């Protein structure tokens, strides 16, 4: 796409500001299982906004913020009241509070349609495309002249201020927010007022919602409060890292979404689609990618880990069988014999893998342990029999129950305690290989 300073700079910047602000705060919502409070507040600030409009008679940012923040706190308080005094289940309490407030907002908009320069549709998808830089500079050098700055839309300044505010809030209270998120009881014990933190967070979320939704719409706000933080949560266990990753995810989905909104339809000669909607979808796509491909918690990682473990177990089991044959005076075995000894297992694959690893050698259909293979086989059998001994002597297993657990335990890093020279079945427990 062709980037136009006049047409694209501020929509993109506005999206970035909204996304990063929301993502920053979203980390604490997701951790505290309050994800849906973001949803609730972004619906229920509507009546606060309309009331502020009507009272102030203009889109005065200060009054708007007051109205929205008041509505945000009111929502949080209302949810608590319905939950505690009405004994209503938390989910339903939230549902009651935000849907009634939202409906009130919709009705007020219709009622004061003439006074209020707001329509319900723009509340949902925002007006990103309307953020045009009138009188934009020709060169970057001119960007900071008074004339150029005067053309910067008011929304951008509001959002910049909000990002700074949110960053300050999180930066200053990071420790307290973290403790309150993990353990409200501990926080109280340490002298941190957990419920004050809760309401402070709600106020900031409400303010962020208002600052952002005018430009990007409330749906993108909800998405950015949850998706980047959820994505980051799948990538790390450390909260500080999670916050930075969530910001990165927010930036990435904004840029990808904004670019994609015009570039992808253009491929098919179609007109551009809603940028805010497309950013929302991008944040969802990024989350799906994280669910599937996250290094530790991703679906792929878990499958791969399980598979490599299964391979190692397969090779070890093959070596075990070969070693037992060898003990019985059969230094070589055929694939058929091995398959009979390892029912239901992929013996040819095991032989191939073990050959590649240099642990067995093949001559036609005959398979034999190599020198390193013998060493590892000794080790496996030793562990297996030591575990059998341990399970019978220490854990009270019956001797005929220990083979299967020991088959698993022999692959562990941890060794069983040293035992006698014979296993519960009277077989010799070999000494550890000389080299190790």
């Amino acid at each position, binding site marked *: 796409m062709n980037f136009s300073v006049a047409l694209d700079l501020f929509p993109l910047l506005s999206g970035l500001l909204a996304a990063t602000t929301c993502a920053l705060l979203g980390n604490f919502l997701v951790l505290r299982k309050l994800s849906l409070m973001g949803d609730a507040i972004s619906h229920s600030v509507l009546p606060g906004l309309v009331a502020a409009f009507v009272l102030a008679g203009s889109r005065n940012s200060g009054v708007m913020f007051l109205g929205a923040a008041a509505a945000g706190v009111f929502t949080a308080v209302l949810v608590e009241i319905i939950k505690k005094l009405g*004994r209503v289940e938390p989910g339903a309490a939230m549902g009651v509070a935000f849907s009634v407030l939202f409906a009130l907002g919709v009705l007020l908009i219709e009622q004061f349609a003439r006074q209020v320069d707001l329509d319900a549709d723009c509340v949902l998808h925002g007006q990103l495309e309307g953020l045009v830089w009138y009188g934009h500079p020709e060169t970057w050098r001119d960007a900071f002249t008074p004339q150029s700055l005067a053309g910067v839309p008011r929304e951008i300044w509001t959002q910049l201020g909000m990002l700074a505010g949110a960053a300050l809030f999180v930066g200053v209270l990071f420790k307290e927010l973290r403790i309150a998120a993990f353990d409200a009881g501990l926080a109280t014990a340490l002298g941190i007022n957990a419920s004050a933190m809760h309401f402070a967070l709600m106020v900031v979320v409400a303010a962020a919602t208002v600052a952002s939704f005018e430009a990007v719409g409330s749906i993108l706000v909800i998405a950015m409060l949850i998706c980047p933080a959820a994505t980051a949560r799948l990538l790390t266990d450390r909260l500080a890292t999670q916050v930075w990753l969530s910001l990165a995810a927010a930036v990435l989905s904004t840029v990808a979404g904004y670019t994609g909104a015009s570039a992808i339809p253009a491929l098919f000669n179609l007109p551009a689609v809603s940028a805010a909607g497309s950013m929302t979808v991008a944040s969802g796509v990024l989350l799906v990618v994280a669910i599937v491909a996250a290094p530790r918690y991703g679906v792929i990682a878990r499958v791969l880990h*399980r598979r490599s*473990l*299964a391979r190692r*177990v397969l090779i070890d089991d093959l070596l075990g069988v070969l070693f037992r044959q060898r003990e019985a005076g059969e230094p070589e075995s055929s694939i058929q014999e091995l398959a009979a000894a390892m029912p239901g297992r992929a013996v040819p694959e095991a032989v191939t893998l073990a050959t590649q690893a240099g642990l067995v050698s093949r001559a036609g259909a005959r398979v034999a342990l190599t020198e390193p293979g013998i060493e590892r086989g000794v080790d496996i059998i030793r562990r297996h029999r030591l*575990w059998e001994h*341990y*399970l019978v002597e*220490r*854990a*009270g*297993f*019956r001797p005929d*129950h220990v083979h*299967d*657990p020991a088959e*698993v*335990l022999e*692959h*562990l890093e*941890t060794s*069983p*305690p040293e035992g006698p020279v014979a296993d519960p079945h009277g077989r010799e427990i070999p000494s550890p290989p000389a080299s190790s």
Partner: protein
Amino acid sequence: MSPVLHASRTKQASLAERSEHSEHNPLSVHAVTVAYHRKPVIWDVDFDIEPGRLVAIVGPNGAGKSTLVKACLGLVPRAAGQVEFWGGSYATSRSRVGYVPQRESVDWDFPVSALDVVCMGRYRKIGWCRPVSRSHKRAATACLDRVGLADLAHRQISQLSGGQQQRVFLARALAQEADLYFMDEPFAGVDAATERAIVAVLRELRDEGKSVLVVHHDLQTVRTYFDDIVMLNMRVVATGPVNEVFTNENLHKTYGGRLTLLSEAAEAVARAGAGAP
């Protein structure tokens, strides 16, 4: 030691003969292993329950007592092992099994009366989509009467005391008219009246030739309330008639010390059971 209740065999022979299914024990648990989130809770558990016996499962917190009950009933997946009811699968014997879940497992602020809850025990007999008929309500009321709550049949369940709620659960299980009962901590936090009522019902059930497996936490009352015992700490430490098995030595084995290497090993086995082929 050996999990089957050998010692009680001869004594129970007469009861067993009365039972139609004398050749099979009501419950036979074989090599059952269960893991939650890859953490093993019980490992390779074996034991049998004979007809007409009251059996306690005891063990420290986290020993896997409730998990064992849930694993028997198929409420948690088993990583390994089998559970047989009268020598067959659970699916075929379902109608002969009754269940008393932990009291805390449900929301007691639910808009039903004590009688409504007891009627739930009859739903299986009533069948799909059919209303609860008067005869079933009478049967349910009779069950409430057996636990001493007939007066409170129409009271909303949140207005019952903890002990009364527990007795409602017991009455519901009675309404199931089962031959084998599983009860998860029925004595937890109940008053003396409830405890007496539960014990009386347990003894009646035993006298009818039914068996009851009870997750129990009060070691003081094990001897007076129960015939057999399963002492559990991730593994079955001992099982058999209470007067033979409930010894200081076994108590020490069950409650003393943690078998760290064992739990690590069990974790590995459970992980393998849940994950790899």
